[in-house]
């Protein structure tokens, strides 16, 4: 075993992670190698010094000093939460305004109603006009009346074809 490997195994043994044959080989190497024995003593000393610092006591009244800070933070957190959400709510609110505005703008107004709808709203019979057309005696008169009626509606759908 070379010293490099021995150092690795030595650290494992100091962590109680080396057993059996490995531990025997390391013990044999340490017996024969003064440099590794020195390294072992130095590592032992170093680790015991490091472990000395374990669980150092904090300054007195740790919890008593922490408690008011916890209370303070828990009061601030809901405010921060609301602040964060109110910032996110601004674009949502603007989008809603645009949607409602668009809906109101695109809804057909009373002035754009068809003639039939206007007649219905005024509680008049929309068929009475048509009835008059069909009651006309001459076909020319009927055609002319239909043409004028379609011009009044401003739509090509009802225009008669010649």
């Amino acid at each position, binding site marked *: 075993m070379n010293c490099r490997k021995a150092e690795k195994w030595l650290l494992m043994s100091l962590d109680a992670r080396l057993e059996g044959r490995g531990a025997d080989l390391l013990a044999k190497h340490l017996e024969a190698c003064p440099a590794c024995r020195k390294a072992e003593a*130095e590592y032992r000393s*170093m680790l015991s*010094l*490091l*472990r000395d610092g*374990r669980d150092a006591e904090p300054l007195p009244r*740790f*919890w008593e000093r*922490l408690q008011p800070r916890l209370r303070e933070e*828990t009061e601030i957190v809901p405010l921060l939460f609301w602040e964060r959400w109110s910032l996110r709510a601004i674009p949502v609110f603007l989008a809603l305004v645009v949607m409602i505005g668009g809906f109101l703008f695109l809804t057909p107004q009373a002035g754009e109603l068809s003639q039939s709808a206007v007649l219905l709203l005024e509680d008049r019979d929309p068929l009475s006009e048509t009835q008059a057309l069909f009651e006309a005696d001459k076909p020319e008169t009927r055609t002319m009346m239909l043409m004028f009626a379609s011009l009044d509606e401003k739509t090509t759908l009802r225009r008669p074809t010649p």
Partner: protein
Amino acid sequence: MEEKQLVRLAREGSPEAFEELVRKYQPKVFSMALSFTRNREAADDLAQEVFLKAYLALPRFHGKSEFGTWLYRISVNHIKDYLRKKGRAKEVSLEDVHEISFSDKEQTEKAERDREIESRRTLVQTFVGSLPEKYRIIVTLRDIQGLPYEEISRILKLSPGTVDSRLHRARRMLRVKLAPYLVAEGGTYELS
């Protein structure tokens, strides 16, 4: 009361349960902060901030890991942030080390012993503090805090092999730094 139960009660808003958890973990969190800052006041502040963070994050802790592991992870991340903000720690002055490693002969025996213990701690902490961050964290968690390899691996989200190799390298570096201050005395090595 079992830790899981304490955590559950603390999540539900019981200050008594959280207090018990703080009392259990405060020395560990404090000593970890101390090994990074080498200043008791700064370490105390950091420990308080860690517990504040943990308290606020408690509703998001679902018990997938142990509470201690979770708290250590918060501590390590918070200390890293602190060190990053603070900038690189002061370089170790060997003159400072000599100064603190010698005991004051005029002190009484007990005071001298206490002082010597404190000096040793400070010396080791100084050298640990001079290691690069990734090695410093691993030495602190393993050799100062005494955490098992598996837990360190979970806290740092590193493979056990990486933890092993980093720790090995860190200990070698530390031994090289500390070696001049370790002399043989009756078969054991102590600080001069």
